[in-house]
């Protein structure tokens, strides 16, 4: 007597696991290029959900569809969360019906797809149309290369990481933004003495901390250090520049550069941004999206007090002080399984450098990776900042993509987790290097 308890318990556990994958798998249902009969298809273009951006993208899509005689493009905003977007894209790319066009971050975010033969090589198309190719900033277009071939066309603004500072606070205290790392250390001690947190840092979200490592490694060792790491060269993490940068981070944390509770501060819910906007932190190392973030959330601060400067040089470092790190831009790539690749190429050719699209992007505050924009950037809501970013990238000899985007996926979690331990003082630079070397 008494039913066997096994079936129900197994069900509970199994349901837990299948329940987990269900929302992700459900994405495949919508991903097929819903084709009409004959040659004309509806091309699906997957993008990140972003109201301002989606509006601009839709204008480009409408413009293309108006004059298109064959296939039309349909914009599908998938998710506002980059990680969720990447998950859904992954599942869809593994299915027989991936999207036709896909928004991506270049490099590590699409390398697997390229290896699996899922993305179209655009090198020939770019070579055949030099006017089209030359309409993009070369350093940004090249940052989208994989194994020497182009797989992506820049489709939105450039997002280097810059050093933001509170102009009024600096003026009040008679300080200048740091030109060298020694200046930066002096500023840390100065503001700490004034009971102002030197830097805001959203350590809870992990990736803001990574920006420090990226810049410090770049300044100490130049771009080749990370190129070797990204290429998977054995012992690449053991480069002295990595250890030196981690040591600098330990030193900064020890001096109180980020306060003591930075690992509880989030970035995405405005924890770090508010700290900075309220004048409780003097500086903030962040991507250029911080500007639109501050304009949205703390308008008067953004208009009056938000200053920006390049990351300081490090004495004796091998890196060029003009080099930048961050997200060069986002790209559109075309899948090999697309029902009408020519139409997809035609869409990118016609729209991605089109004046209407570029101007619309500029109006949202973006700085597109398109050549010859100097005069048109006046239309930006933050024209000074837009010109600054444009000239920063033009001047930069290299633009290193954020490591968590550039590395192969299996490195991302250990990288962020181990770095968080270094910031929390629970791991030495040597342990960090050993831990990263052991990731396969």
């Amino acid at each position, binding site marked *: 007597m008494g039913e066997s308890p096994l079936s129900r318990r197994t069900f509970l556990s199994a349901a*837990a696991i299948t329940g987990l994958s269900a929302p992700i798998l459900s994405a495949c249902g919508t991903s097929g290029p819903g084709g009409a009969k004959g040659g004309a298809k509806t091309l699906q273009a997957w993008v990140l959900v972003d109201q301002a951006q989606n509006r601009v993208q839709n204008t480009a899509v409408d413009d293309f569809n108006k004059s298109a005689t064959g296939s039309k493009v349909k914009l599908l905003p998938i998710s506002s969360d980059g990680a969720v977007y990447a998950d859904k894209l992954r599942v869809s790319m593994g299915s027989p019906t991936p999207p036709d066009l896909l928004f991506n971050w270049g490099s590590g975010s699409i390398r697997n797809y390229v290896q*699996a033969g899922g993305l179209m090589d655009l090198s020939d198309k770019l070579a055949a149309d030099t006017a089209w190719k030359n309409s993009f900033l070369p350093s940004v277009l090249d940052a989208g290369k994989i194994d020497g071939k182009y797989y992506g066309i820049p489709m939105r603004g450039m997002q280097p990481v810059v050093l933001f500072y509170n102009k009024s606070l600096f003026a009040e205290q008679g300080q200048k933004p740091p030109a060298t790392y020694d200046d930066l250390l002096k500023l840390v001690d100065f503001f700490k003495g004034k009971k102002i947190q030197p830097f805001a840092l959203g350590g809870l979200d*992990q990736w803001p901390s990574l920006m420090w490592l990226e810049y410090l490694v770049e300044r100490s060792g130049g771009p080749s250090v990370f190129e070797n790491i990204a290429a998977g060269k054995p012992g690449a993490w053991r480069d002295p520049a990595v250890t030196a940068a981690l040591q600098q981070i330990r030193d900064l944390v020890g001096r109180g550069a980020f306060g003591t*509770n930075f690992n509880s501060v989030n970035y995405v819910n405005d924890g770090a941004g508010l700290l900075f906007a309220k004048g409780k932190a003097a500086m903030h190392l962040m991507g250029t999206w911080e500007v639109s973030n501050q304009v949205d959330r703390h308008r008067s601060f953004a208009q009056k007090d938000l200053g920006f400067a390049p990351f300081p040089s490090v004495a004796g470092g091998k890196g060029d002080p003009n080099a930048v790190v961050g997200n060069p831009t986002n790209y559109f790539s075309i899948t090999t399984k697309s029902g009408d690749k020519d139409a997809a190429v035609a869409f990118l050719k016609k729209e991605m450098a089109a004046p209407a699209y570029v101007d619309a992007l500029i109006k949202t505050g973006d700085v597109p990776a398109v050549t010859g924009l100097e005069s048109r950037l006046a239309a930006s809501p933050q024209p000074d900042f837009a010109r600054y970013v444009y000239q920063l990238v033009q001047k930069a000899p290299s633009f290193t993509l954020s490591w968590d985007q550039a590395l192969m996926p*299996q490195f991302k979690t250990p990288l962020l987790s181990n770095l968080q331990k270094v910031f929390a003082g629970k791991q030495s630079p040597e342990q960090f290097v050993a831990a990263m070397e052991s990731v396969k």
Partner: protein
Amino acid sequence: MTAALPVARRRGVRAAEKGTDRAARPGVLWVLPATLFFMLFAGLPLVLVAVLSFTSWNGLGTPAFNGFDNWTRMASDPSVLQSLRISAVLTVLSWAVQTPLALLLGVWAAGRQRNRAVLSSLFFLPLLMSTAAIAITWLTLLDPNFGLAAKFGPSIGFPDGNIIGSSRGALGCIIVVVSWQFVPFHTLLYQAAARQIPKSLYDAATVDGAGRVRQFRHVTLPQLRNTIVTSSVLMLVGSLTYFETVLILTGGGPGGATNILPQHMYMTAFRDYQMGYASVIALALVALGTTLSMLIVRFSGFAKMRSTLEGI
């Protein structure tokens, strides 16, 4: 003779129940839709995961069989052991926090006074909110500079409000948030069960001179035995699936301090794209959940399904 009588009566009751069972249910046909649903959405995926656990697959192309590689890897993977340890701590602590709270609240709410009805429905509210919304709300509350953490942190041993950013504090946050969310559900179970307890038992206890505390210990608690087992199984197995809360609140951080096994599985599958290895972890979770609930059922005597109303 006196002892034989209840046994005979019990048998009689069982036989009668069986009889009505046969009359009311047409058998296999009724089970069919549920069975099909279960096989399609639970059975089949489970089998597929088992197959995947013997492959190396990054989510693209065809999975390649690699024998027992994933299994041997798990046996020597310190991060899995670490996740297992954190999961165990979380499971035990969240059970220990939720059970007394839900039990006391449920018994209290079982009273018929009107204010209890109003308050109970307020207590029930967290259960109606989505896990993601709850986690994001708590994230704002836990901000060490502007949230409640800044105010209350110093009085609970976190002078700078660095609760969610410290290893112990982060685990504590997960337990608090999960409890806040799920205590109402278990309260509901206890409330319903407590209302089923016959009043005659309390009357008898009162006649025997038992006060409220003794009534609770010697009448209410024994009567709620089956509910305690049910609720505990749900809590323990459920705690093996707390995943959204961890993902949104801490992302497994700081430095892996809240990287529970389901979170580890998710990260392995959908961040590292090692589907084969993630499947091994998934199967370990299934085994763990099954074993855990079977053990509870076994040692609590729940499988014998003895009614708490016998002899009344």
